[in-house]
């Protein structure tokens, strides 16, 4: 085998946004790994300045078309913390239900359309559909059930219009919500099948000693609220995020990486939530996880696909629970008293924690904003995974290793357009590789 090799993927497919990958090797050693993002910056933090607090959920949702609700939820929670408002009762439940919709839709998209084809050796879900038409048709129906929740509560599936600081513009009726129940019952069975199906995929042996970070709530699997915790001792309220997390400039890459101060890279997303909140899952989800061969935590990132399926099941069960107990609130939102201040919000996007911070003036205009999406936080961990994975599999032929490197990145379901408005960019498509 050649002693100098390089793996190059100029345009990473089946991720959201534009990224590229370069791995260089010399004499059996990995010398350089770069997971780069060449998505152009869109300057959200800059043009949020001078906009009204009430526009933040509509504007920030446009950072990412795959998880707009995460942006809406983190922004409204941050704004509400400034005004001293906390939603409870049915409005709080409705936000949880809304998030269930996004998790189902996004997880199913990733599991079946973006990730399963990798394990089965297909280029995409449409090719997969030729050999497994029933699987793909069921997957599409499952995904649609997530979208149905989002569309009913939010008005449409991408960039919903019904989210408001203080609640919603309009609350659905009980009847509208119960119309979803039949499909959700069907979905529960299919989600369970999905867990079983994903558990049979061929997983590379690969475990790493990650620091997992997620929200943790006293009695729920986390969506909108909780403390920020890790398996290595972090336990802080969301407002202290910036005392513990920083963006660092590392020499081998021109992108900023988010790290834990004095500790380094960490891991956000399904594996982290699962490891830190196993006890908050429903009995059915816990049982499904055990039958899938997972313990109460899992350190193999390739198995993220199983955990996404378990979280899909969880979101379906949670949606059914909320709908069964739902009563239409008297008012779709609570009144707000606008005032100046700084607020923080952090919620669990399907890909992991999404942090927002805003400072408002006394009229409610945004003075500054900071947004740290999950992909930025995972970027350093993704690179570490690649370095390790290549090191251990250096004898694989180039095409196979290339595909598995891409897969290593797709394990994280990265949203690159989310990551760019705070990453430094370096256009690398035409970079010379020996």
């Amino acid at each position: 085998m050649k002693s100098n090799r390089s793996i190059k993927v100029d345009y990473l497919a089946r991720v959201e946004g534009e990224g590229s990958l370069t791995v260089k090797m010399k004499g059996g050693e990995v010398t350089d790994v770069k997971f780069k993002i060449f998505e152009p910056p869109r300057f959200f933090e800059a043009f949020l300045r001078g906009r009204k607090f009430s526009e933040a959920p509509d504007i920030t949702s446009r950072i990412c078309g795959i998880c707009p609700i995460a942006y809406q939820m983190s922004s409204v929670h941050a704004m509400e913390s400034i005004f001293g408002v906390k939603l409870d009762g049915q409005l709080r439940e409705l936000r949880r239900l809304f998030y269930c919709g996004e998790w189902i839709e996004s997880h199913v998209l990733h599991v079946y359309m973006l990730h399963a084809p990798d394990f089965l050796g297909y280029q995409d879900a449409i090719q997969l559909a030729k050999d497994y038409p029933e699987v793909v048709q069921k997957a599409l129906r499952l995904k649609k059930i997530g979208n149905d929740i989002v569309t009913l509560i939010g008005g449409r599936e991408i960039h919903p219009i019904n989210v408001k600081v203080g609640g919603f513009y309009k609350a659905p009726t009980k009847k509208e919500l119960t119309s979803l129940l039949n499909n959700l019952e069907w979905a529960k069975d299919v989600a369970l099948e999905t867990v079983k199906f994903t558990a049979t995929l061929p997983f590379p042996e690969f475990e790493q000693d990650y620091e997992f970070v997620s929200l943790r709530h006293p009695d729920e699997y986390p969506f909108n609220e909780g403390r920020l915790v890790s398996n290595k001792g972090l336990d802080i309220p969301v407002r202290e995020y910036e005392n513990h997390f920083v963006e660092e400039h590392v020499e081998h890459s021109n992108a900023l990486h988010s790290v834990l101060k004095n500790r380094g890279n960490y891991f956000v997303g399904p594996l982290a939530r699962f490891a830190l909140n196993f006890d908050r899952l429903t009995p059915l989800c816990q049982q499904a996880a055990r039958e899938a061969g997972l313990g109460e935590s899992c350190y193999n990132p390739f198995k993220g696909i199983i955990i996404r399926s378990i979280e899909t099941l969880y979101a379906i069960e949670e949606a059914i629970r909320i709908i069964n107990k739902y009563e239409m609130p008297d008012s779709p939102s609570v009144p707000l008293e606008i005032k100046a201040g700084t607020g923080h919000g952090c919620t669990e996007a399907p890909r992991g924690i999404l942090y927002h911070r805003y400072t408002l003036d006394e009229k409610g205009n945004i003075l500054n904003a900071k947004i740290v999406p999950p992909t930025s936080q995972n970027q350093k961990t993704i690179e570490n995974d690649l370095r390790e994975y290549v090191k251990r599999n250096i004898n694989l032929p180039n095409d196979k290793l290339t595909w598995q490197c891409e897969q290593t990145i797709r394990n994280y379901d990265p949203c690159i357009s989310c990551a760019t408005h705070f990453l430094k960019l370096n256009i690398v498509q035409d970079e010379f590789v020996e």
Partner: protein
Amino acid sequence: MAKKRKPKLAVWKFSSCDGCQLSLLDCEDELLAVAGAVDIANFPEASRAVAKGPYDISLVEGSITTPHEAERIHQVRRQSKLLITIGACATAGGIQALKNFKDVKDFISAVYASPEYIETLAKSTPIADHVFVDFELRGCPINKYQLVEVLNAFLNGRKPNTPAYSVCMECKRRGNICVMVAHGTACLGPVVHAGCGAICPSYNRGCYGCFGPKETPNTSSLAEWWKQLGVSEEDIVRGFRGFNAYADAFRKESELHEV
């Protein structure tokens, strides 16, 4: 007998959130039918496989914001028989065109620690400012049923049925109570291109213009109406400067109210 060759479809991304191309994957009921009618030759968000051009239909999402994108769009045009732009980013510069009203240098230093790494153009511009566009589909995001209609029309050699009248028409047809008349809520509906089915008024809020200006919009009359509702000049500027801020009619009206 030789089978008729399926038309080759390509999907391209420029500066955007991916929401418009995701609309295609969100057509759960139609996706496999669409995939059966065309040969998906280039669609990185969905597939690793890439087939060489030329392409019969190219869907283009996103606006032009970097020198590299300004070159790349010409390559896409050369390889495409039909080029259809999808969404507010591609048809009007998108939300990122808010930077067009400011000095881009201030924007870069506000967000990035080392501005020298950032290669960006002073303005975010729509695709039609750079190359000839065969058809523009509006929305932020586009409406997925309209997307299916447009694909269907072009595959069958007819004109797409995407009306150019205002959101008000859809709103009336839906039987909504007008939020402006009944609640005094500012609504952009009268000047905004139809296509969404008047979602916002159906959820008790004013339209914020994600489908951009309709044909010949009377923006000054609407702005006058808003003023009578007590909307400040500042808020009128913000109203027209949303997801289609750089569409001509909205840009001009917003500039008239700048204080």
